[in-house]
């Protein structure tokens, strides 16, 4: 039985950071310029003590509350996050209990970022198609705000907190949204360009390192998230076109046979450039970062949910999804959107 995406639900924390607030803190930018460059108007920010697993729990609860699926029907839980509750135990184990999933269910954390939904989807597909479970709950969740230095205006402008719950199940006789061949890629030579250096074991005891600036003037703190924007942009220029071609080749498709392209929603500037480089018509390209910013591993399911709610994905559409980022890591697939999503009530 092929794996199919049945439903997606999202959850975001209450607090909002808008462009006027950012411009007040960083006066060399205007709210208009921020939105023009990034495509982002609002970001949600988790409260003190509110963790990724809390957001994931709420997204999953919304999915269950809709009646699409009951907790006891889940055979496997995958949590994609780089902000766990603890080093141990696995946050997915804590969520199994909080969500009331069966004790017979598998549960695992996947430490992956902007490519994470694709990697989780690939694992869910493998689990389902090998007969290990009939329903997989794929949760993606991040509280990036807790990683950022309060003066890192570049990261504060782009990233937001949020979670998505994706229900993946074995397709039955009725139409589904079939997950195609998975294509992956990794290049650890880029590890230093998206990194939180301190806090784990490589730099144990080094917390409290004074921040500096990198060669481009970006704030650089080993205790916080660091992004080398120009290097990351170059990575996407080198990698995304070839990754798209690899996904198309795996499905024996040409780009003009794809109806919708959804990339990891990094920021509008980057995606506009990639869209033009790949000559993808704007009407076939999803941009959905305005209200929540870059929510890392949850951007693709959030964009798919918004597009479904807005009626932008017709039944039978071929949807090319591609995630890329920290690692470096990337991955993609084609979804055959035969059924549409079962939409939870908002």
């Amino acid at each position, binding site marked *: 039985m092929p794996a199919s995406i049945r439903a997606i639900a999202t959850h975001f924390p209450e607090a909002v950071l808008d462009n006027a607030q950012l411009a007040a803190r960083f006066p060399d930018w205007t709210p208009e310029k921020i939105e023009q*460059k990034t495509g982002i108007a609002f970001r949600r920010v988790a409260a003190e003590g509110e963790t990724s697993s809390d957001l994931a729990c709420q997204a999953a609860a919304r999915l269950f509350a809709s009646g699409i699926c009951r907790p006891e029907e889940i055979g496997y839980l995958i949590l994609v996050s780089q902000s766990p509750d603890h080093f141990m135990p696995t946050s997915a184990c804590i969520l199994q209990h909080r969500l009331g999933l069966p004790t017979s269910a598998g549960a695992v954390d996947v430490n992956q970022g902007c490519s994470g939904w694709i990697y989780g989807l690939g694992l869910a597909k493998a689990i389902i198609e090998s007969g290990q479970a009939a329903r997989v709950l794929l949760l993606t969740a991040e509280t990036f705000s807790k990683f950022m230095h309060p003066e890192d205006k570049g990261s504060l402008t782009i990233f937001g907190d949020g979670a998505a719950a994706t229900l993946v199940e074995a397709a039955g006789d009725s139409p589904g949204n079939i997950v195609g061949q998975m294509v992956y890629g990794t290049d650890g030579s880029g590890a230093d360009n998206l990194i939180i250096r301190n806090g784990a074991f490589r730099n144990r005891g080094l917390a409290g390192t004074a921040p500096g600036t990198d060669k481009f*003037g970006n704030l650089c703190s080993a205790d916080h998230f660091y992004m080398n924007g*120009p290097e990351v942009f*170059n990575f996407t*220029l080198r990698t995304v076109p070839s990754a798209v071609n690899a996904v198309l080749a795996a499905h024996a498709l040409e780009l003009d046979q794809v109806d919708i392209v959804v990339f990891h929603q990094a920021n509008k500037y980057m995606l506009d*450039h990639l869209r033009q480089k790949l000559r993808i018509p704007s009407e076939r390209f999803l941009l959905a970062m305005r209200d929540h910013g870059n929510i890392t591993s949850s951007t693709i399911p959030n964009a798919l949910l918004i597009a479904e709610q807005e009626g932008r994905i017709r039944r039978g559409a071929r949807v090319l999804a591609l995630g890329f980022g920290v690692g470096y890591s990337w991955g993609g697939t084609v979804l055959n959107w035969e059924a549409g999503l079962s939409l939870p009530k908002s």
Partner: protein
Amino acid sequence: MSRQELLHEIDEIFYLSRGTLSGKEKLKEIEGWDSMAVLNFISLLDSRCAIIVAPDAIAACVTVDDLVRLAELPGA
């Protein structure tokens, strides 16, 4: 793309009127020479010259003319 056209494009990156930059200006003395300007320049060379330039090469540039040289314009 000619050298003059490239200079006009760099004018736009810094929100300057066309024809402002001659090439001799020091980058550090131009308002707005930051990582966003670097991204804009990488984007410009990729889209107009099909060159993916290394950020370290941009960081090593001192003047606008140094940026122009990265474009590998014919006859330059």
